């Protein structure tokens, strides 16, 4: 069925799930910006995974003589930080913790938030009202404030940072999941499934999940960019990751004191945060239009 039908994939999408995903893939590949963003984001992930092989030097080992060497120094292509450690290696290694801190909360919040939202949307009625009103309370905090409040109270640390960011992202994801599920719940085939005696769990698993996970996932990917900025922001404030671990936000924090000595060196970690955040943002935009999801 492959060759002949690809030209008519728009006609075939309605009843053939494989055709739908092929169409999504084709539309995504046609979007040059999205593909470029995917390459940058993928490159960052590869860099994080293969850091020990890519990095020219040990990110923890510094020499005081090399303190704050300017960009382009011999053997230190991007200079050296306030403790004489190679910037390039630290930026490469930094991808590990920074990506981990940025992506993990969204992933966990995606799992928990979807479960809450789908349950609320499918159950409807007073169960829905109670769940959504509780979420409204967390919605009443600006996200930055909530993240800082929780991790400020818990104290510095990677786990506390992850926890506070996860709490921040559960309500918005649950809200999207709830609204998508509520709209699917009203469709006739769900009614048919209920009439045929299927249990709520089966209906959700067979008929609801496939229809709601896509939009929720795309929404969650759009949060990765925010999460990257917030996670690095927590470390920038001295919460989250603690020294001497290489993490972009923390590096910005410690290099901030050197802003009058080596200004552009001090700004380097931010470039990495910005690049990652913008590529995840554009990737998510590309996915949304490829999957034709309206927001």
């Amino acid at each position, binding site marked *: 069925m492959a060759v002949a039908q690809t030209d008519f994939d728009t006609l075939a999408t309605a009843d053939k799930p494989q055709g739908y995903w092929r169409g999504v893939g084709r539309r995504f590949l046609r979007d040059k910006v999205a593909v470029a963003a995917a390459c940058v984001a993928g490159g960052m992930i590869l860099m994080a995974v293969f850091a020990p092989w890519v990095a020219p030097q040990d990110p923890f080992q510094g020499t005081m003589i090399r303190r704050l060497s300017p960009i382009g120094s011999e053997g230190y292509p991007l200079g050296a930080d306030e403790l004489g450690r190679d910037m390039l290696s630290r930026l490469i290694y930094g991808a590990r913790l920074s990506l981990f801190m940025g992506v993990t909360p969204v992933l966990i919040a995606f799992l928990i938030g979807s479960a809450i939202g789908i349950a609320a949307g499918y159950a409807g009625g007073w169960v829905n009202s109670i769940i959504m*009103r*509780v979420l*409204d*309370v*967390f919605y*009443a*905090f*600006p*996200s*930055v*404030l909530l993240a*800082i*409040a*929780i991790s*400020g*109270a*818990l*104290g510095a640390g990677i786990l506390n940072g992850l926890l506070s960011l996860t709490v921040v992202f559960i309500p918005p994801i649950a809200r999207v999941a709830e609204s998508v599920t509520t709209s699917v719940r009203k469709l006739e085939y769900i009614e048919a499934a209920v009439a045929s005696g299927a249990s709520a769990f089966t209906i959700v698993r067979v008929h609801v999940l496939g229809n709601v996970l896509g939009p929720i996932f795309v929404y969650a990917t759009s949060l990765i*960019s925010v999460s990257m*900025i917030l996670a*690095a*922001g927590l470390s*920038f*404030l*001295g*919460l989250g990751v603690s020294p001497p671990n290489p993490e972009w936000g923390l590096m*910005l924090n410690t290099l*901030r004191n050197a*802003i*009058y000595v080596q*200004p*552009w060196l*001090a*700004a380097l*970690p*931010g*470039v990495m*945060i*910005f690049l990652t*955040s*913008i590529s995840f*943002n*554009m990737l998510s*935009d590309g996915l949304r239009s490829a999957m034709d999801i309206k927001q």
Partner: protein
Amino acid sequence: MLIFTLRRIAYTIPIMLGVSLVCFALVHISPGDPLVSILPPDASVDLQQQLMAIYGFDRSYPEQFIRWLSRALQGDLGNSIATGRPVTSEVMNAVGNTLILAVTATIIGFTFGGLFGFVAGFFRDSWIDKLASTLAVVGVSVPHYWLGMVLVIVFSVELGWFPATGAGPGGSSQWSWDWDHLRHLVLPAVTMSVIPMGIVARTVRALVADILQQEFVTGLRAKGLLDRGVLAHVIKNAAPTALAVMGLQLGYLLGGSILIETVFSWPGTGFLLGQAIFQRDLPLLQGTILVLAMFFVILNLVVDVVQSALDPRLQRG
């Protein structure tokens, strides 16, 4: 309208209760005995007992919550550990400075974002539309604390045009609208304005593009109305939503100013929060967050009511 407003207020009260519950819980989720985290390590037994009585840690949680809440309602948020001064006065002093910063940033962001979004939506798919969309993405993707640092590097370190930190002569409590103070406001306000700018541009663009496709615009054009005339109608239709977005953005900036205030040592609530976290001053942390969150809730309420007054169709929802 009155019924809508009353209903909206009635809906806000449980939210406020929930918000204060979360703030109350902050002290209790912090590791260790809550009293230990509230007291300095060298606290005297006398002080320990005094605080024990104020917080009532020997009582049950619901009882503690009610006591804390009734004090908070009377404007007593406890005393700061670091300075010993009442949290309420510290926070109120800082809120003023944050408001100056956030309101200025919102005005800058709304003016330029709205303008950009409007032109982009009016001339869809033109180069200016693409530029506006790109700027919008950059605006929401840039880590603003880093942007602040870059602006400091360019305009303070390299060019020396604007001061890098502080709020000008007189420190935190004596703001006035003269050049000596305004110079200090420029960089933080511009940095902060980038976030709402991107979001407002995106919203206004979508709004304008959507309105232009509606039938009444075709009707106006068919009637012979020039672009200029159509423009007025578009503005009138886009304004309520755009203003609502602006109001919400102001709320986000008030609550989210901590990172920018840290970069610029701006003596507002964010800076206060930073200090509270650094010194593990939990009453100060709790009080500041409570005040900021309440501001946000009330702002949301006001935005909803104003928006529905401007656009009565919303009252039906």
